[in-house]
Each structure stands twice: as structure tokens, then as C-alpha cells.
């Protein structure tokens, strides 16, 4: 039997490409430009609804902060010894979310997993904005926010320096490094796309893109430099992302507070960060997919891959979580053990159990393909998982502080005041606002990389078909004859 080229093509597609059918390899490149640049034009009405809601939420946070600024941190219902509360918990949570974006992008880039290409851009943007949000919490939680610049190392008329021994300074350094590096990574990766925007935009927008695209022309020399640069940056960013959250964990692990002073905290924090980051990527995936009609690029198989990764991360986190409890229990240190028992039985116990359920049990739903491919379910699930991770951070901060080494000062039964909740809510508004503005101004899917992906897919297919055609035996084996 003679196989026509077309028949072979279909067969090859069945055999090889089916597994990789996450994106249709035959989309016209010009259509990609058009589809994605459309997100910079008029979005669905839901966009504006969310935007206005976010702005309102942000203003709630701002007014709470103004009140707190004028009155003192007491209005947040923090007290001695419960000096940290939702601010620090939410700070870690935002920082953690920022992880998956850049880390995933860099890791998958190095590993040549090309399904990252439609989703990495908005993930990186998410990283940037979660970091900005987290940095905001660092300021908000300070008693004297107006003196925050004392932490910055610069020569000054006081002849003072920050205390480089403090994990908070490492934190500031690490976050600063991560923020700037992520920004550079995001920007450099965006330059070819900015050139596309420039080539298609008109009016004042063109001037902006003209400026931002730095005259990129896509010459072979530029591409060669670009490739090396992008890979190198990815290599730097991956360890950086790991280091940032480990350093954040030293804020706790390096202290003497029982329940904070835990050796496994750095990997535990990193795992939690990746976990919550993946969950938020899924959430944003679904939202963007709907808002900007990206169904062709953000396809269900990609979502499934993300879900599988999330499941894996959840299991890593669960393991580290349990090992933390186990080692505390087994280590039999009186202070830490009492703190652990307090977490499970004290005032915060309902939240602690909820956290364990949401963090460890709920992700098993992701083992089912029906769940993974169901978009509304995934939306709810990802939000719930993230809420569980937020609870995790809160359960590290609050119960532990309420139950320290010194029994006389235990637990005044503090519940965060509306100021704390307001500022936490405001941070969501702030993040959403920034992220949506970003998606409105910059392409949230990397156009050139999607093209690259399609190009690779297509050449792979072509190559395979060519192989099949020139080698009939292989074709027979592959079942083409039938």
C-alpha cells in the first residue's frame, strides 16, 4: 500500500503529535500577532468590572493604612508578645507566590519544556507584582514606616549602616535582588514582543513601544546574543528564586521562637512558595484565558500540565510539613512541642486543621483528569489551595507568637482588627490592579515564543513525516499500512 504524504501526515500526527497536541501547530503566525495584540485593545467588560473592584479594594487598604499610620499599630490589634500578624503572614504568602513565575519560567526554559511558552510571560509579570505587593507589606508592618530608609545601605550624614547580621536585611537584599532580576528577565524576554507591538501600534502607544523595544529588529546577531543572555539569566534566576524564599524562611528559622526555629524551614518555605505560586498561575491562567479569549494558546493540556505540577508540589509540601511536625514531636524539645500542641488544640486550631486539609488533602483532587480538565472546578480549586497556603503562613506566625518560650506572656487571644483585614484585602486590589494594567499594556503571552513553539512543532512533524515516507518499514510498524 502506498501512503500519500497527506495520509502519512495524519498518521504521524496521530502517533507523535497527539501527545503534544497542547497547541495547534498550524496557527498562522500573523494570526498569533493579531490574537495576542487584541488583548491590548478592547477587552471583555469583565476586565473593567474587576479593575474597578480592585481599585476600590485598594482604596480600602489605603484608608486603613492611613488610619494606622496616624494612630499607631495598635489599631491593627497587634500586641505584646503577638507582635506580628497578618502583615508578615501575607507578606510571606505574596513573596511565595512570586516564586513560581520566574522559577518556573527559568527552570522550564533551561529544560527546554516548550509548553511554558504561552504561560511564562504573565507568570513572570505576576512575580514582579507579587513582589511589589509583598514589599508593600514590609513597609506597612513597620512601626515607623516613615523611617524605612534606615534599612537601606547608603552612606549618610548619620554614619550609620543597617545591621547586616539581621535576616531582615538579607531579606531586603534578596527581595531587592529578586525583584530587579525578575524585572530584567521579564523585560529582556519581552523585547522581541515589544518590537511586534511597536510594529503594530499607532499613536502615542507606538512611541512608548518604540522607546521600550530599543530598536529591536530581530537580526541574527541580536538573536544570537538574546539566546545566550536569556539562558544565562535563567541560570541565575533559578538559584536566586530558591535562595530568596530560603532567606525569607531564615527570618523565622534563625530566631529563637519555638515553632519558628526549625531546620527544615528553607525547603519547606520554597516548596510552599512553588505550590502557592502554581496555584495562582492556574487561577490567572483561567482568568486570562477567559478575559482575553486566549483559548487557542492557553489550552486545556497546558492547564493539565500545570495541575500535575501543582499536585507534585503539594505532595512535596505535605511531606515537608509532616516532617516538620514529626521532627518537632520526635525531637521532644519542650518549648517547640508545646507550641505544636497549641497549634493543634489552641485558639487557632480550626484554622490549623483547615490549613492541613486544604494544603494536603484537597490537592488529591488533582489526581483526576476530570478535575484537571474542568475549568470552573480548577478555578475554585486553585483559589482554595492558595487560601490553604495563606492559612499556612498565618499558622506559622500567629499561634507561635501567642505561645512562646515564656509562659507568663502567653496568648492574649488576638484577632486581627479590620485594619489588618482591610490592608490584606487592599493588597489584593493593588496586585490585581497592577497585573491587569500590565496585561492591558503588554502582551501577556509571548508571541515570538509561541511562534518558536509552533515552528519547532511543525519542523518536528515535517521531519517525522519525511522519516516515515523514506522508511516504509517504520511506517508499517507504526501501523500506517492498515
Amino acid at each position, binding site marked *: 500500500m502506498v501512503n500519500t504524504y497527506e495520509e502519512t501526515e495524519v498518521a504521524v500526527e496521530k502517533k507523535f503529535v497527539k501527545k503534544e497536541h497542547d497547541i495547534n501547530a498550524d496557527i*498562522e*503566525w*500573523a494570526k498569533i*500577532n493579531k490574537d495576542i495584540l487584541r488583548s491590548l485593545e478592547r477587552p471583555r467588560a469583565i476586565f473593567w468590572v474587576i479593575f474597578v473592584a480592585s481599585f476600590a479594594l485598594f482604596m480600602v487598604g489605603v484608608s486603613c493604612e492611613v488610619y494606622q499610620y496616624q494612630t499607631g499599630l495598635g489599631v491593627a490589634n497587634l500586641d505584646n508578645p503577638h507582635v506580628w500578624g497578618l502583615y508578615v503572614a501575607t507578606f510571606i504568602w505574596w513573596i511565595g507566590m512570586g516564586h513560581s513565575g520566574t522559577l518556573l519560567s527559568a527552570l522550564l526554559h533551561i529544560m527546554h519544556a516548550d509548553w511554558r511558552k504561552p504561560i511564562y510571560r504573565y507568570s513572570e509579570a505576576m512575580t514582579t507584582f507579587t513582589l511589589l505587593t509583598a514589599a508593600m507589606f514590609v513597609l506597612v508592618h513597620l512601626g515607623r514606616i516613615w523611617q524605612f530608609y534606615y534599612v537601606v*545601605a547608603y552612606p549618610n550624614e548619620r*554614619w*550609620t*549602616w543597617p*545591621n*547586616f*547580621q*539581621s535576616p531582615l*536585611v*538579607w531579606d531586603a*537584599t*534578596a527581595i531587592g*535582588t529578586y525583584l*530587579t*532580576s525578575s524585572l*530584567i*528577565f521579564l523585560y*529582556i524576554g519581552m*523585547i*522581541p514582543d515589544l*518590537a*511586534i507591538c*511597536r*510594529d*503594530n501600534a499607532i499613536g502615542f502607544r507606538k512611541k512608548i513601544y518604540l522607546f521600550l523595544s*530599543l*530598536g*529591536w*529588529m*530581530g*537580526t*541574527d*546577531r*541580536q*538573536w*544570537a*546574543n*538574546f*539566546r*545566550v*543572555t536569556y539562558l*544565562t*539569566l535563567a541560570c*541565575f*534566576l533559578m*538559584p*536566586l528564586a530558591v*535562595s530568596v524564599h530560603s*532567606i525569607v524562611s*531564615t527570618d523565622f528559622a534563625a530566631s529563637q521562637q519555638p515553632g519558628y526555629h526549625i531546620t527544615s524551614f528553607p525547603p519547606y518555605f520554597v516548596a510552599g512558595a512553588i505550590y502557592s505560586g502554581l496555584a495562582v498561575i492556574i487561577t490567572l491562567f483561567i482568568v486570562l484565558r477567559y478575559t482575553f479569549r486566549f483559548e487557542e494558546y492557553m489550552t486545556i493540556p497546558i492547564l493539565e500540565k500545570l495541575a500535575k505540577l501543582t499536585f507534585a508540589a503539594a505532595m512535596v509540601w505535605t511531606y515537608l510539613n509532616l516532617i516538620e511536625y514529626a521532627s518537632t514531636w520526635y525531637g521532644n524539645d519542650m518549648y517547640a512541642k508545646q507550641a505544636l500542641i497549641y497549634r493543634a488544640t489552641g485558639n487557632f486550631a480550626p484554622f490549623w486543621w483547615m490549613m492541613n486539609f486544604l494544603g494536603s488533602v484537597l490537592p488529591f483532587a488533582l489526581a483526576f483528569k476530570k478535575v484537571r480538565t474542568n475549568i470552573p472546578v480548577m478555578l475554585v480549586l486553585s483559589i482554595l489551595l492558595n487560601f490553604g497556603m495563606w492559612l499556612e503562613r498565618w499558622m506559622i506566625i500567629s499561634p507561635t507568637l501567642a505561645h512562646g518560650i515564656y509562659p507568663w506572656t502567653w496568648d492574649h487571644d488576638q484577632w486581627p482588627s479590620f485594619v489588618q483585614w482591610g490592608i490584606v484585602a487592599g493588597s489584593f486590589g493593588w496586585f490585581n490592579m497592577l497585573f491587569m494594567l500590565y496585561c492591558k499594556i503588554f502582551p501577556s503571552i509571548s508571541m*515570538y*515564543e509561541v*511562534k*518558536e513553539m509552533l*515552528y519547532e512543532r511543525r519542523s518536528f512533524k515535517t521531519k517525522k513525516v519525511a522519516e516515515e515516507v523514506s522508511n516504509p518499514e517504520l511506517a508499517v510498524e507504526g501501523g500506517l499500512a492498515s
Partner: protein
Amino acid sequence: MSKSHVMALFSDFDQASAAIRDLKSANLEGFKLDDVTLKSPIEHPEIEELLGKRPVYVRIFTFFGALFVPLLGFLFVASSQATFLLQPKGGKAVIPLPPNFVLTYEFFILGGVYMTALGFFICAKLPMKRNKLYNAHVSADQIGILIKAEDAIMPAIKDLFTKHKPLEIMWGEN
């Protein structure tokens, strides 16, 4: 002898590479591969097989950044600790190594990233002014081949291009 530029737009990479292959085999006098520039919407590393390896110097920047910035960072931290003598810490040395290593590591990343980015801008000559011989299609789905050549061989190049059915041929001052 004056030189001028010509650019041809092709609808896909195969056509463009065929054109370059032809150019190479044509053995035109004074034609150098260095003068060929491929403008593409995506990266085509395969083109280096035809045009020869394009030198990339970014890694040199990266190397120096990752080497010297942490060193300088360590010295910066240590010396500011030494001058900030009014705050010795109980239980710790004035210049304690573990925190400084953590910070040095951050400086290492920072140096690597910054210098890589700097190297990229320098090596890729960004920001630059766009050539006049630029077409917006290059950023969408077409491939452009820009050749800088002496006027004498310019007609031959154009002929060669035409043979490969380009979508468009542009020439003039760059």
C-alpha cells in the same frame, strides 16, 4: 567603492536559507557572509550553519560580573560593618561570616544578572536605531535577508533573490 544595502523578504525560513545557500555558492566577488543579516520573527539558530558562528561576548560580562561584584559586595559589607563600630552585637563578631556569605551570594546573583543584561545591551548594540531597510512583517511572519555589498555585485544579488521568489525586495541607504 561605495556600498549599498538590499533586503529581500521571504515568506518562510526555507526559502530564505535556500537563497543564502545560493548566494554562498555564487562566489560573488567581495561578498562576505559577515555582510549578510537575517531578520526573523523568531530565533533561527540553524542559520549559523550557513552564515558561520556569530560571535557572542555576553558571557564575558557575566563572568566578570559574577566574579567581581560579589567580591566588591563582600568588601562593601565588611567594611561598612567595620566602620559601624558603634554597634557591636553580643555573641557575634563585628564581621560575622555566615550573614556576609548570604549577602555575598545575593551580590553574586545581582552581579551576574546585571552584567549579563549590560553585556546583552552592548553586544546586541541595543538600544539602536532601526534600519531603514526594515519591514514590520519581519516581526510577524516573514524573514528578511539584508545584504550589504558593493554596488558592483548588487545586480547579481538582486537577481539571485528574484530567483527565489521573494515577497519584496528593498534597497537603498541603510
